[in-house]
């Protein structure tokens, strides 16, 4: 139920109330009522047609590096 999926912003619609995003190869419009400062190229988390947050790519890279690091530990 709390499923939210990442989607890339293709365009911010006039007035800034909605954005066009790419979601699994399809384009759709999502509400920006719950987020601020969204730019083209940002990744948003989409839940029931609303962007609920932006995804921080730098933090994502850091988490992936931690996965790799955990796996390299000698038992």
């Amino acid at each position, binding site marked *: 139920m*709390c499923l*939210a999926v990442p989607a890339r912003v293709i365009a911010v619609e006039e007035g800034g109330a909605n954005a066009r995003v790419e979601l699994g190869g399809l384009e759709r419009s999502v509400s920006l009522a*719950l*987020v601020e400062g969204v730019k083209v190229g940002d990744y948003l*988390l989409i839940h029931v047609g609303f962007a609920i*947050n932006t995804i921080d790519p730098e933090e*994502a890279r*850091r*988490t992936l590096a931690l996965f790799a690091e955990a*796996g390299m530990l000698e038992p």
Partner: protein
Amino acid sequence: MSGLKFIDEFRDPALAQGLAAAIAAEVEPGRDYRIMEFCGGHTHAIQRHGVQRLLPENVRYIHGPGCPVCVLPGARIDAAIHLAETHGAILCSYADLLRVPGASRRALGQCRDVRTLYSPEEVLSIARDNPEREVVFIAIGFETTTPPTAVLVKQAQAQGLSNLSILCNHVLTPAAMTAILDDEDSAIDAILGPSHVSAIIGVAPYRPIVERFRTPIVIAGFEPLDVMQATLMAIRQLNAACAEVENQYTRVVDEQGNRRAQALVDEVFELRETFEWRGLGWLPGSALRLREEYAEFDAERRFDIPSFESREPNSCECPAILRGRKQPHECRLFGHGCTPETPLGACMVSSEGACAAAWSYGP
């Protein structure tokens, strides 16, 4: 691989093997680690990606109540059916809800005019297109789903829609976690905190729970590798006899959460004194209702709804399963009258529930 950024790389099988090895190296033999993943989305990820099978036998996931469809009591379904039958209301909700039976054993899907929503904003056009009918949005969900409902209520007010109302069933994660841990028989060593609830509420609301019960909470991302890393973090805390709130899902969750969403929710909703949860009973301060300023959009104030009883089935073990004391197959009803097709208890109601997951994927 589906080629989806921020999804594929968090499902990488080689990294999963590495994390599994790190967990195996970390666990102390002879000690049990009972870790509740609170959120139904995590339950789904664990089952679908076979995460449990990658872990040592003494690390066991306990599936939590974090599925709003599962914990909605039958009385609320019957209240919605009443609105359809007595007031001819068009009922609108998310697809997950439609086959859930009320205490009357009837489901919303059997009502004459039920609309399935992708987004709550669709309710606005349904109300505009049917000015002579009452349109009721059955709002369900944890903190993730509440802000979109708040936006809908404000838009309905701005557009002067007088035939639209909300049957509000929005519930609160920290209250449910507290109810589960506040039980001397609770058998939970650590909790994996929900991803997208935390995207809204942040890290801070979990601190009082950890301080009170000395149970570690690790906020985990939605993908299987996130769940595994959060599990490793929880095991490390337990081995070190620590109890802290940690945040694994840093790419989305921060300390304060989404303040804009929180402000909207606070503007539109207020705390209910108490609310009934299927499987957990009546929990104080565990749900929201519309504020007085938005009373005209509140179906419970707008209509005279009789009080329905929820009547949980006798011998249903959901309360014990939700607290980690029993497993689904230990319930007498499991597979004997209670199946995903004919659910009796909360944990069988949606595919995210503990019993439905055990039924579909095995224990």
